[in-house]
């Protein structure tokens, strides 16, 4: 049965900070407050009208504080109002999106913030004298401490196993020349995103092929997402209030038409209730729930902003969400589905690989970009996707529709 929320909810304001490998001169609180300030400016909104919010903070270790959300409330102008902290692995952003949406859709609030922020590269490994091992180790603390973590499970393994097992089943998909072309497109697209982290890069198939393997043959270094410090704030408003705000700003409301979520179990196996090799079923289920709620299908979507932790996973997720068949994800290029060869815009922000990946807010960053593209290009529908946790267990999808002023 199609599930419809009590009230419709729209995005009426959005702001994202520039993505940087490190914001030396900004703390996590400043990044969050900067995003809130920008979103209020975008929505021309008096802060006293905001009734609460949800904040995505991926983990306490990066934030250098247990219960880090406690400091944010005041910075966000929400003193004496409710603020919910969400943490759901890599999918923290999309789950925060769900919580903020439901705060309004339930009728409890009219206007709320949906914020995500991240500061990861204060972490530092004093043995290698670099940041990366400590960032990666922090993520690796998410593996099961009894049966897996001591075995050396890494952050990359999380998607590596999923991709390798997909390749076990579909050895002729995910071909390197296709992956190279996808990377070239994403890199090019990042250049038109003023906040993208890797705007100055040039990617060619040759450079991809020379890039070291992180996990062979799952992915190479150039196929992995960056680590980013940054923040994004979206402002959600209920039907009635949203139109009023948008009349002031002159920007159309972006309606949240569909939302879907599903989490796979942690433990892998040969049948349910275990996670199955070769699949990201969470993406499949989440997308189908969101399509059903919105009353549309993948053919109606104009823009996809997808959580591309690793390039081959982008292809698998596109298949799971119904844009291409499983086992034929290379059709994205070979059958000219994806722009510029086809019509479908995929990750015009550059995605997480070239745009940026500040985990707590990456999926908000995707929504910021999708809203920008819907308005700029006068398109109708966008799909936002988030994934995360060990073995890409968590999946979330939101479908956005451009309204009229």
């Amino acid at each position, binding site marked *: 049965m199609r599930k419809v929320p009590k009230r419709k909810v729209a995005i009426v304001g959005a702001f994202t900070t520039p993505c940087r490998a490190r914001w*030396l001169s900004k703390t996590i609180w400043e990044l969050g407050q900067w995003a809130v300030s920008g979103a209020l400016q975008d929505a021309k909104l008096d802060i006293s009208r905001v009734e609460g919010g949800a904040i995505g903070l991926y983990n306490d270790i990066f934030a250098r504080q247990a219960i880090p959300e406690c400091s944010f409330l005041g910075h966000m102008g929400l003193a004496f109002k409710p603020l919910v902290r969400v943490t759901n692995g890599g999918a923290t952003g999309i789950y925060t999106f769900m919580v903020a949406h439901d705060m309004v859709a339930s009728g409890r609030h009219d206007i709320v913030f949906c914020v995500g922020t991240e500061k990861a590269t204060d972490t530092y490994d004093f043995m290698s004298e670099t940041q990366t091992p400590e960032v990666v180790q922090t993520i690796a603390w998410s593996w099961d401490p009894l049966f897996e*973590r001591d075995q050396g499970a890494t952050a990359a393994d999380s998607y590596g196993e999923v991709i390798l*097992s997909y390749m*076990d089943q579909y050895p002729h998909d995910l071909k390197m020349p296709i992956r190279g072309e996808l990377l070239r497109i994403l890199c090019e697209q990042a250049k038109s995103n003023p906040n993208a982290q890797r705007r100055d890069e040039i990617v060619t198939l040759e450079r991809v092929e020379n890039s070291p393997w992180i*996990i062979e*043959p799952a992915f190479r270094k150039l196929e992995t997402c960056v680590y980013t410090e940054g923040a994004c704030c979206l402002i959600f408003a209920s039907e009635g209030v949203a139109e009023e705000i948008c009349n002031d700003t002159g920007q159309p409301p972006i309606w949240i038409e569909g939302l879907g979520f599903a989490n796979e179990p942690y*433990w892998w*196996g040969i049948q349910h209730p275990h996670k199955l090799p070769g699949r990201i079923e969470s993406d499949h289920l989440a997308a189908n729930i969101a399509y059903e709620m919105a009353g549309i299908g993948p053919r109606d979507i104009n823009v996809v902003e997808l959580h591309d932790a690793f390039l081959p996973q982008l292809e698998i997720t596109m298949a799971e969400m119904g844009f291409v068949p499983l086992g034929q994800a290379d059709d994205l290029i070979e059958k000219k589905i994806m722009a510029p060869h086809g019509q479908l815009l995929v990750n015009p922000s550059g995605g997480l690989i070239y745009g940026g990946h500040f985990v707590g807010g990456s999926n908000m960053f995707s929504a910021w970009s999708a809203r920008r593209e819907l308005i700029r290009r006068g398109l109708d529908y966008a799909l936002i996707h988030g994934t995360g946790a060990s073995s890409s267990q968590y999946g979330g999808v939101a479908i956005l529709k451009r309204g009229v002023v």
Partner: protein
Amino acid sequence: MEKIMRIPGEYVIPHEAIPEVMSRISVSPEDNFACVERTEAMYTTYWASAGELSPFFLAVMKQKKIIGARCPKCNMVICPPYMTRCPVCQKEDFSLVDLEMGVEMPQVGYMLGTPPITVFANARFARYAPFGRGRVILGESQSALPIQVFTTTGFLRPGIFKAGTKVKVIFRKSRMGFSTDYFAVPLEEVPEKLRDKKGVEETALKWKSQELSEPPITETYKKQFPKILQTVNKFVAAIAKSPRAQSDLTNWARKILVKTGGGKFALILDKQRIKLVKEKISRPDLVLVMEDPNRLVGWTNGDSIVNMIRTGAAGVNNLQDMETIFKLDRLHRSIRRDAEEKGGR
């Protein structure tokens, strides 16, 4: 309480990972803002109990057995026994059905999927590298046992383990209750007489280590060598003009002896620079060996030494110092990006 087992000199946080109390003033390149940075740590240490899952680890430690659990209602078998109740079946009072614990599993199974291989591990796991970490299905189990995978034949390369590869569980000689007390090797590498035997320890297998042989000098390579040295020299000299490359080498000092089929030389990493030295050096920190010296030209053009080691085209005498190789691999991209920025691409 039994006596405490310990690995002398090994700490849950390696000493060298712990910084002194320090601070510094750094200037943010974006906005020229002076920032104070301090060393900090968030740490918690544990005597962590395996609780209701302890019988699994005790069976490994004391009996060299792998145990699972079975639901008496739906017959689902799980290994490892990561929970004590079936999440699907309920009793008449609606509570979840208790699993029968302690089901002994066979010690030969198959890989659920192709396992990822970690060649370049971080410090906590460097002593195991290269290792694979995958999932094995034992007997009737519907869930897969996470397990490290090793080969007895030397360097672990892709292709040795695939989805469906038959493997045997092998036990460490010293077992302390960790998930590294056991691992898997391809069944075909296990001598036939041991294949059906349970509780086989690592010492019962013959392990071949990676050997670094002296590359044979050939006339062709010898002739090419001076020009190759010039190219490498030019490349390392470019570090002086690249802030990114200098940053890659921060606080890193190594003497690397490079042995090729055209001759030897050394790279001295120090003070954010690399110096090429043709003279013999004493006590190198790392030895890099490759037959074809032209691969070094490839490196100066962006080829990865990591990939060369992985494919056997090059070797190092100490896999636990792969961080140095990572740093060498980063240099080309850093130099290129700084040059592209300077030249407006």
